[in-house]
């Protein structure tokens, strides 16, 4: 059992730099948690506080219900993989992996028994006598993982381990990490700024900004039900379209005005929303150029300003009032530039955000129906 809990964790650097603000999170045994956010949001700092490499300014961290604030990294039973691998340059691959065991006082035979299986699992056996400078980036990363795995810790920590690798290698290493997690079933906390890594690896994602938690949820929840405008715009590529709209009620039904075009909303707007101005959010892939497959399409007209073929998809840009929007559609459709066409918005994917708080204030009909069905 290796649960991890953060209770009101704060990190304040000298000069009153408040990097992490009231961070709370409970992680269950065996979960793969990803801390995701832009640079400087405090994700690495929080991870380092868990590892014991940074002092905790406030709050408590518990591993297996035991407070670990004052414990050294070795006493917390954690292992960490660093962004720059941090291999010992003067030691061979074998010695790098075995170093922690050597420090723990194990005999040569015992060390050999533990290092070999790990090396085999990571396909490092032919490289054991090499020094780090004779290895490729991917090989070094595997050595760093081997060094962490050989200690059989309760919690694995990864600090942007794939950032230094090229795109192709990143994909294959990501798959390897996922396979390893399935095999070892250890609690894992992974820090990244890459949303693809987060979406593919995580059981739950923690989105951070400026030291604060914006949302915690499964990849699906984060993607389909973002809690606020920041999360909605951060996740998803191409990024979500944000359109300023006027919100009004007509005979008990909500509708929005987008530069003269009126759309009837089928879902519920948050009761606290009193302002008439808000921001509509819809992902490019949720704006279609045919109504097929949509149960409740909302129709708006727009002129195709630009068209780009990306292979299996085409990306169109259009304009609604002052806002430029992006639309993603299968490339099988024939569309021409400067054509005025109908765009069909998938109502079940519609988002709306308050201009004051940035919070999500709308629940689409399809979501409401699925909730009431349960």
């Amino acid at each position, binding site marked *: 059992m290796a649960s991890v809990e953060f209770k009101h964790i704060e990190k304040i650097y000298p000069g009153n730099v408040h990097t992490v603000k009231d961070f709370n999170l409970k992680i269950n045994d065996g979960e793969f948690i990803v801390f995701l956010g832009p640079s400087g949001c405090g994700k690495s700092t929080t991870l*380092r506080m868990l*590892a*014991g*490499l940074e002092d905790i300014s406030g709050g408590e961290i518990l591993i297996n219900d035991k407070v670990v604030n004052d414990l*050294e*990294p*070795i006493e917390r039973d*954690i*292992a*960490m993989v*660093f*962004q*720059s*691998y*941090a*291999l*010992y*340059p*003067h030691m061979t691959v074998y010695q790098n992996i075995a*170093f*922690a065991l050597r*420090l*723990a006082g194990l005999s040569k035979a015992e060390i050999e028994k533990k290092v070999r299986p790990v090396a085999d699992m990571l396909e490092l056996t032919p490289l054991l006598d090499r*020094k*780090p*400078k004779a*290895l490729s980036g991917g090989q*070094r990363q595997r050595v760093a993982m081997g*060094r962490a795995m050989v*200690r059989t810790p309760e919690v694995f920590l990864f600090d942007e381990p794939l950032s230094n690798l090229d795109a192709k290698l990143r994909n294959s290493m990501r798959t390897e990490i996922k396979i390893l997690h399935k095999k070892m079933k250890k609690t894992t906390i992974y820090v990244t700024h890459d949303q693809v890594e987060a979406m593919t690896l995580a059981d739950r994602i923690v989105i951070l900004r400026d030291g604060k938690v914006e949302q915690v949820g499964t990849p699906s929840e984060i993607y389909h039900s973002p809690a606020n405008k920041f999360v909605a715009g951060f996740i998803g590529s191409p990024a979500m379209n944000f359109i300023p709209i006027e919100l009004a009620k007509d005979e008990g039904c909500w509708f929005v005005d987008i530069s003269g075009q009126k759309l009837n909303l089928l879902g519920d707007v948050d009761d606290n929303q009193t302002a008439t101005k808000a921001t509509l959010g819809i992902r490019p892939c949720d704006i279609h150029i045919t109504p097929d497959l949509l149960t409740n399409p909302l129709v708006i007209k727009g002129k195709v300003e630009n068209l780009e073929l990306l292979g299996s998809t085409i990306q169109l840009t259009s304009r609604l009032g002052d806002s430029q929007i992006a639309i993603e559609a299968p490339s099988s459709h024939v569309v021409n530039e400067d054509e005025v066409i109908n765009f069909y918005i998938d109502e079940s994917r519609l988002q709306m955000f308050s201009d004051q708080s940035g919070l999500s204030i709308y629940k689409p009909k399809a979501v409401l129906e699925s909730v009431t069905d349960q």
Partner: protein
Amino acid sequence: MFAMRKIRWGKYIFLMLVAGFVLVPMFATVLGGFKSLGELRTNPFGLPDVWEFEYYAQVFADGSIWLLMKNSLIIAFFSVLLTLIIGTMTAFTFSHIKFAGYKYIYNYFLIGMMFPAAAAILPLFLKIRDLGLLDSLSGVVIPQVAFGLGFSILLFRSFFEQLPSELFDAARVDGCSYIKFYWHVILPLSTPILATVGVFVLVASWNNYLLPLLVLNTEQQYPWTLGIMQYRGEYGIEWNRILAYVTVTITPAIVFFLFAQKYIVEGLTGGAVKG
């Protein structure tokens, strides 16, 4: 094209002049021990007309040269050892542990570099006397180490700061204490800078005349720098014997330097640790 050739030749000539500046006196020294006094005066830089080996033989004749060299070696060895140990530990502390007031203490060490030993003769003598270290080799070693620490700490710290900080994080996660990290990681990675500092301290110690003169009274404890003064007293101004003696005594330092040369170049060009 012609201009390029001219520049290249200019470089060669300049480098040869600089090298000559060092090598010509060295060769003159070595060859001087093979010449008679008269020839030394008339032909100071050329090859000897007649190779006289008796002067080199006389340097080794009464056996005192070995005692002098042994004392120099003991002093140099302990000076280098203590400087490397204390210097690396101090520099490691300054580069990795940011305790309150560390900047002031670090600057205090560096100020020591500005202080010439010659200006401190009297207080140094009094302190060594008070510590009961007069007329002992320790009385030479300890002040030598102290005066050399400023420079050594500066070089060590610059080198240690180039080591990636994540290396220490990884070692801490693996269970390394500060001491273990110093022993298992810092020292093995520091061979270039250890060689550089070691050579500087060795050469300074080997050639040190003032401190042994100040501290030592017994002939049995004299290093070769004091021994030469004895020779001078005996032979008056027999330069050929002196040159022979000097050639013999600087040879160990040169040999050590040649051996450590590769590491020194690495250390001074500050090779960053990769991987």
